[in-house]
């Protein structure tokens, strides 16, 4: 390559990356970035693929078609990552990178990597990176409602966008294994969730613990996939019975879910939670020793988060399911449903 052109190309590339980063981090501008990334992906598809991946925004059956289960058991629609070319797969990741915060994006990749690990170690071809699906409801738009779905084993992400408003509710994250080695490093896709929950629990005094700890087993999520539109009676300790520091810890824990989305909207969601913190509950079920397999729930007027280790014969700390919901705005209904 011409030595004079190379530095120029580097400068141009750096400028374009910088420009994207600025666009992506400016509040109110990220939807345009997500639309651009989605259009780039859609433009790379042929007509048959486009017909498979884009659904009508009113298609409620597709809206609710998500699960924690592998695709061999729960049939997803849309396009399978394994059926895409490498540039198309990278374009899908580009959409997620535009929609998510850097830590949210990393978490999602680590969950997918865990499934790849599971495939390699179990020899089961129903697992792995190829088995994730992408789909859309509606056309990418900076003003009209539309939706991005990305899911597979232990991942059911539903991002509804209406103008500059976005929500991840309802979405499922999980991991098996919840801890694995990659390139000599220990990876824990849901490690922050686990550590912050135990830190919050250990900050509670004896009387607070009596309120927070439920006296029975929680063997699964209560409001997992398939339980749309339900709100259960909250239990545990109420935010009004927590200290200021403990309330901050509770919000910090919740930010592991609310913060998956891009910072521009994640902050607004956390601010909304902070406003309702006195009416937000924290419940715990199971052992209290740090790192043990315990269930917890955060429930407030606009949020339900559950974390449930799966006691299915193996080490429950290595197989985790979680759910994130907004009882007032799952699928962003308050922004578009009339």
């Amino acid at each position: 390559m011409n030595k004079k052109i190379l530095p120029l190309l580097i400068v141009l590339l750096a400028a374009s990356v910088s420009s994207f980063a600025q666009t992506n981090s400016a509040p109110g501008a990220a939807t345009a970035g997500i639309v651009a990334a989605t259009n780039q992906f859609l433009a790379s598809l042929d007509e048959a693929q486009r017909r498979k991946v884009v659904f009508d925004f009113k298609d409620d059956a597709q809206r609710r078609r998500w699960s924690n289960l592998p695709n061999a058991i729960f049939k997803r629609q849309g396009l399978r990552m394994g059926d895409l070319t490498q540039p198309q797969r990278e374009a899908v990741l580009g959409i997620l990178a535009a929609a998510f915060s850097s830590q949210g994006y990393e978490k999602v990749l680590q969950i997918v990597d865990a499934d790849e690990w599971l495939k390699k170690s179990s020899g089961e071809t129903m697992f792995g990176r190829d088995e994730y699906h992408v789909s859309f409801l509606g056309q990418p738009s900076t003003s009209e409602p539309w939706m991005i779905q990305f899911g597979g084993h232990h991942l059911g992400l539903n991002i509804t966008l209406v103008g500059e408003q976005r929500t991840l509710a309802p979405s499922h994250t999980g991991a098996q294994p919840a801890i694995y080695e990659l390139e000599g490093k220990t990876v824990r896709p849901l490690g922050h969730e686990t550590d912050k929950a135990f830190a919050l629990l250990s900050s509670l005094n004896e009387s607070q613990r009596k309120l927070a700890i439920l006296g029975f087993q929680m063997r699964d999520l209560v409001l997992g996939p398939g339980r749309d539109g339900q709100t259960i009676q909250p239990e545990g300790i109420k935010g009004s019975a927590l200290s200021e520091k403990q309330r901050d810890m509770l919000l910090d824990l919740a930010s592991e879910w609310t913060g998956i989305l891009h910072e521009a909207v994640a902050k607004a969601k956390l601010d909304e939670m902070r406003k309702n913190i006195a009416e937000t509950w924290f419940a715990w079920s199971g052992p209290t020793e740090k790192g043990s397999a315990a269930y917890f729930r955060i429930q407030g007027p606009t949020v339900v988060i559950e974390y449930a280790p799966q006691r299915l014969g193996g080490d429950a700390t290595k197989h985790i399911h979680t759910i994130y919901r907004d009882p007032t705005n799952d699928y962003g209904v308050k922004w578009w449903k009339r």
Partner: protein
Amino acid sequence: VVEAVSGTLRRLPLLLVFLGVPSVVFAHRDDQYLQATLVVIEPRGVRLEINFTPGVAIAEQVVARIDRDRNGEISENEAAAYADSLKRDLTLRIDGRKLELRLAGFEFVPPEELRTGSGIIEMEFSASFGALTPGAHTLALKNRHLTAIGVYLINAVQPRLATIQITSQKRNDNQSSGEIEFTFHPVPLKTDRSAAPK
């Protein structure tokens, strides 16, 4: 996007490093029968919305109880018969008084879907307790359905009406039985001023 793509490309060689990892047991709810009940309390009665999810290893056992003629389909009669057997395994009481359960609806997925371990049977029962007296009440539910393989959840749904307030929920260790304490405070009828004589 560029960052995402370059990040992905950076990771590609790393993702190939999966050699020599210890084997892991893939586990979903294989030998358990999840029975998750949501309890909806209303001023004149209660609804039980129960989702049943048989695990892969015991799904055949459950299917055999439902698809009695083994023709690979669940008929209305077979579904109703299974619902009836389940009803006999449920006991619901209000303030110690046993309530009569009525099957309000059901939805069965085909047997082949149940055998995958992800198929869900949805069932709804209702019971009327007549006019409640204002004040505190206790609703008690016991589920004895297939206890050898059963895994249970019981949760009260947040009442939609302000006249009912859940005050506490208690369960036994495995949640096969539970008590929901609630209060009922009927709203006094508002005087219709427009109809009042002048």
